[in-house]
């Protein structure tokens, strides 16, 4: 009997040896005369257990991990005998870390073959589109709006309102653009979806297209994501062959086509107007708003531009109804958020859960603390433009407004964990340096301010007129925050000021002014 094995082809698994494991398993099977079939899936997101190998059994898929090539022979023996193995994790779906999650967007990621439309359909795929094809654009808009879905890229703008604006605009053509320029350190959810369940993104974008009346979509992703580019292109080709992209999708009167475009190493192109410039073939210089992309976006046409996770949430909403999605969450943050635990963390990976879970639960319980075993001292939430939170704020619930109330942001849902060896002066300096490297140069506060910020923080590190320079950094941050054109210059103050405020001891003796401001 053929044994059916599953090994991720996700870049995160490949980076820790998944391909070598596949080669070793094939060789070992041949030597033992075993017939095996290896399905390359995405990752389930339990990265400390990658490469995680699963085998289909009568009781469900049994997981093993982290597997190395040297384990291949013993692993096959254990699988064939359904016997014990030191790396055996039990039924994959019952692993507590997975079981505790609410996987709406990531339900199929790591489970299905990301190259197979049939597998996608067998796991509930394209049911959302099929229902959408029976609805009017207004009915779809009502569902998206009622679901409470907000832009998962970081800004949290209500998706339904954005779509409605584009639907109401009249133009000779409209565009759907997916912002897959996931440049924030500590985030990889977009990459996982593109590599592990690309059809859910295609389906979400297709639904957006028929809602607003667009027939062409672009997925703009990063050159740092070669695996995702390959997976998306393969999935688009497969969807075309199956009649889910191109003319008359799913046998309907609608047409929709998709194309992947690759950036060229510019972080600022994750900003939506800069991304549109780049898609048009220009320098990724930020545009002033208004006009909004919904009115004048790609090539001056009305454009829906959403993050990967926003589009990927759509099929569930259309399939299960707006209420099923909105029932999760807290306050104005409805549904689930795929949270990414990264950096110096014991159990790093993708944890999709309803809004409302606290930062402390995420870092200490789910993340298991630091990988090095030292006390966790700081976490940066929301990427390079997100604030550093100390343990004292670990009671903050994961929610757009709760984070904003504490001068932070959830951004794209990345949490980078640092242990007590972190020097917050260095992190503050890096935030400014990164802004200086990546600034598009259009506005002065960002272009010049970031460089002056690096210089001033360096003076503080050298112990030069510390109190005066700290006040100067604070002042500079205010200029950048209120004077920058986009979030790059505007949000760089978040990591800098939070480092100053919450980790004051790292910066030398406290000046009177900062203390008074507390």
């Amino acid at each position: 009997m053929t044994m059916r094995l599953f090994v991720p082809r996700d870049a995160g698994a490949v980076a820790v040896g998944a391909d070598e494991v596949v080669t070793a398993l094939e060789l070992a099977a041949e030597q033992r005369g075993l017939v095996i079939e290896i399905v390359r899936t995405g990752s389930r997101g339990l990265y400390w257990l990658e490469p995680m190998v699963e085998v289909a059994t009568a009781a469900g898929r049994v997981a093993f991990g982290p597997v190395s090539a040297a384990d291949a022979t013993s692993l096959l023996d254990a699988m064939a005998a359904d016997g014990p193995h030191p790396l055996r994790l039990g039924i994959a779906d019952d692993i507590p870390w997975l079981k505790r999650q609410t996987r709406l967007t990531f339900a199929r990621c790591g489970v299905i073959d990301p190259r197979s439309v049939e597998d996608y359909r067998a796991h509930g795929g394209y049911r959302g589109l099929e229902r959408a094809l029976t609805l009017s654009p207004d009915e779809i808009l009502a569902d998206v709006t009622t679901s409470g879905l907000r832009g998962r890229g970081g800004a949290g703008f209500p998706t339904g309102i954005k779509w409605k604006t584009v639907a109401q605009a009249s133009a000779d053509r409209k565009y759907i653009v997916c912002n897959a320029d996931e440049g924030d350190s500590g985030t990889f959810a977009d990459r996982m979806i593109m590599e592990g369940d690309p059809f859910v993104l295609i389906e979400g974008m297709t639904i957006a297209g028929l809602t607003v009346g667009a027939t062409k979509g672009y997925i703009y992703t990063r050159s740092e994501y070669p695996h995702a580019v390959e997976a998306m292109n393969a999935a688009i080709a497969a969807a075309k062959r199956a009649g889910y992209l191109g003319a008359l999708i799913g046998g309907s009167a609608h047409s929709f086509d998709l194309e992947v475009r690759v950036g060229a190493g510019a972080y600022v192109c994750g900003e939506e107007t800069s991304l549109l410039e780049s898609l048009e073939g220009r320098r990724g210089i930020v545009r002033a708003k208004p006009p909004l992309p919904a009115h004048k976006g790609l090539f001056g046409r009305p454009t829906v531009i959403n993050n990967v996770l926003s589009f990927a949430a759509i099929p569930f909403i259309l399939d299960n109804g707006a209420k099923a999605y909105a029932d999760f969450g807290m306050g104005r943050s409805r549904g689930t958020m795929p949270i990414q635990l990264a950096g110096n963390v014991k159990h790093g990976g993708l944890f999709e859960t309803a809004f409302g879970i606290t930062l402390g639960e995420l870092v200490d319980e789910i993340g298991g603390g630091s990988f090095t075993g030292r006390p966790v001292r700081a976490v940066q939430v929301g990427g390079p433009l997100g604030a550093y939170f100390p343990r004292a704020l670990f009671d903050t619930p994961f929610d757009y407004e709760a984070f904003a109330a504490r001068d932070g942001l959830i951004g794209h849902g990345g949490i980078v964990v640092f242990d007590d060896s972190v020097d917050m002066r260095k992190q503050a300096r890096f935030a400014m340096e990164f802004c200086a490297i990546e600034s598009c140069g259009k506005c002065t506060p960002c272009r010049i301010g970031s460089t002056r910020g690096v210089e001033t923080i360096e003076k503080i590190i050298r112990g030069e007129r510390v109190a005066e320079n700290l006040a100067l950094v604070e002042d500079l941050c205010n200029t950048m925050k209120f004077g920058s054109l986009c979030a790059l210059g505007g949000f760089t103050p978040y990591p800098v000021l939070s480092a100053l405020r919450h980790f004051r001891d790292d910066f030398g003796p406290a000046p009177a002014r900062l203390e008074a401001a507390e």
Partner: protein
Amino acid sequence: MTSAYEPWNEARGAEIIAEHAKLEGATLVILHALQEAFGYVPEPAIPMVASALNLSRAEVHGVFTFYHDFRKAPAGRHVLKLCRAEACQAAGGDALAARAEAKLGVALGNTTADERVTLEPIYCLGLCATAPSAMLDGRMVGRLDEARLDALVKEAQR
């Protein structure tokens, strides 16, 4: 490894440009394709792209210089990129970057004198849960430690 790239050739360049020139917003697509073929974007290609897309040379030069990815000269035989973003910093990336610089005798952003290895910083490969990470000639490597880094450096020097 012998170079996987073709030497610059005007006719081949023109062919690559023509292949993509009809796309909407083709500039980046063409620059990527040129670099994939030649290993860098040869200067003579810039006016050719401009003329194919009905743009000024300055516009194409502006795009070419804006993006970190595009090279104006060939890289070393191997390109080792180390992630220098926060998640990798949190996992010990600073010390590993310093170690790689010391082993290769060049600072990040430079090529060794024998032109074997170009060492570059990269800001996030999306492998943040298996940090620190690196990429050697397009191959991803996670959970770097001193031993794994040393092996990578050695492989790059071959």
